[in-house]
């Protein structure tokens, strides 16, 4: 025996995960317990997302994996090759070509369509966990819609910092019922969750939870009337492609305080550069300072 069962998992495990996905879709934002399996990668490396992807994939799918927006980081590369090997599915790094996208902590910049499925890797699915460590209590709080504690937490942010300082894993309320952890995506991505044409599935392997957002679901980031939710990002443009509307990573380029901001979504950035856009630190920019260009070229290789 050299071949794997299609998409690695045995069929009984897939049926169990599939039943959980259907219940998750029927109760948007509610965390469905499931019997998470040990996967050939450590917890924290996307075992939940991998199990959900394995239960969802068909041989005709084209699969994309991103890790903090990038297609070429360790986690993304290893999961992509895992499914190439165990499911034989085609893979891509182009967002628009993918039918199933597994993501760690980002929503792609390019708007998704009805023909796509977005699978999130989730470390801690319980939004109330750091406020109340007992699972028995957080279950009760969800069943009673007792979410005052979450607002107290956001209020304490304002009292201490003058604004809501939570910048990732920003809690949302789904269809006016369940408060949900959107996984540690930057709050810049929160507005994309609501009314998305694609199906969104969330898998937490270590914590053994699956939850889901059907398409066109109402998702509201928690806030206050006098401190409305604000999707924030670094106040710069991308150094490579010049985009002002994408989420940016800060990259330290030397030990002299040099730094640049680049799109965290590598496919989006590459697409823009291919279309002729360039940023102020791009090698193609004729007005870029020579030093920077030199440094930038090294960075790109």
């Amino acid at each position, binding site marked *: 025996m050299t071949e794997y069962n299609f998409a690695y998992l045995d069929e009984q495990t*897939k049926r169990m995960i599939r039943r959980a996905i259907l219940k998750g879709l029927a109760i948007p934002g509610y965390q469905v317990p499931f019997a998470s399996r040990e996967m050939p990668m450590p917890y924290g490396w996307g075992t939940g997302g991998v199990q959900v992807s394995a239960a969802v994939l068909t041989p005709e799918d084209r699969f994309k994996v991103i890790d903090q927006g990038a297609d070429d980081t360790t986690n993304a590369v290893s999961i992509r090759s895992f499914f190439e090997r165990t499911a034989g599915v085609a893979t891509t790094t182009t967002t628009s070509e993918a039918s199933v996208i597994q993501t760690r902590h980002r929503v792609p910049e390019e708007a998704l369509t009805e023909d796509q499925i977005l699978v999130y890797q989730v470390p801690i699915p319980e939004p109330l966990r750091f406020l109340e460590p007992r699972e028995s209590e957080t279950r009760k709080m969800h069943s009673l819609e007792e979410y005052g504690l979450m607002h107290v937490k956001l209020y304490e942010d304002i009292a201490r910092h003058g604004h809501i300082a939570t910048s990732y894993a920003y809690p949302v309320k789904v269809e006016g019922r369940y408060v949900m952890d959107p996984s540690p995506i930057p709050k810049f991505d929160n507005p994309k969750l609501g009314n998305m044409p694609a199906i969104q599935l969330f898998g937490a392997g270590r914590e053994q939870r699956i939850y889901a957002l059907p398409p066109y679901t109402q998702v509201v980031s928690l806030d206050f009337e006098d401190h409305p939710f604000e999707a924030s990002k670094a106040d710069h443009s991308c150094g490579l492609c010049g985009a002002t509307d994408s989420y940016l990573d800060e990259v330290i380029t030397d030990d002299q305080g040099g730094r640049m901001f680049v799109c965290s979504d590598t496919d989006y950035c590459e697409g823009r550069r291919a279309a002729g856009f360039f940023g102020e630190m791009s090698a193609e920019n004729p007005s870029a300072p020579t030093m920077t260009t030199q440094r930038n070229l090294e960075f790109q290789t």
Partner: protein
Amino acid sequence: MHAQTLSGGFETPPVDSAHAFRAVMEAMARPGQIKDISGAQPPAPLSAAAGSVLLTLCDTDTPIYLAGDADTDDVRAWLAFHTGAPLTGPSQAMFAVGRWEALVPLQGYQIGTSEYPDRSATLIVECTELTTSGANLSGPGIKSRAALSLPELDAFQSNRGLFPLGLDFIFTCGGQVAALPRSTIVSAPEGAMEVS
């Protein structure tokens, strides 16, 4: 043992069940949309769609209730061979399959608990026709409006009233599948007169 009992399963279970699941998932995520589903040839009176749903989702962990006509020796033997699922009454069932008249009343099924609303039954309703007209649907999964030929309105409206508890429905007809999760708000067809 009848040959029919042993045949009619998925040809290549991992691939066929993956395709069937995608149809069911798309249907559940987008209430009012009808998807093609195939792979299983169950004994009569089960439709190919109902058989495919059962093979995709059921196994020894999921008690099934066979309602009315669906409860035949052939169906029992076929399910036992292909899924190993125990058969049970409505109160213990995770899945129930049959015609709408045989499945009602809905009060007997598990609707979940307030802490675990997922521990509820899924009803596979065999229909003679399935069209995107009839009752108006709104809620999660529906962009603006959708419609589906439902066997009645009241039962689905009171089921929605139980949210987040409640039952989820999968409608099957021939080789087609549609679904109605508990989150969907059902209202009378537009322009229809109130039935007295």
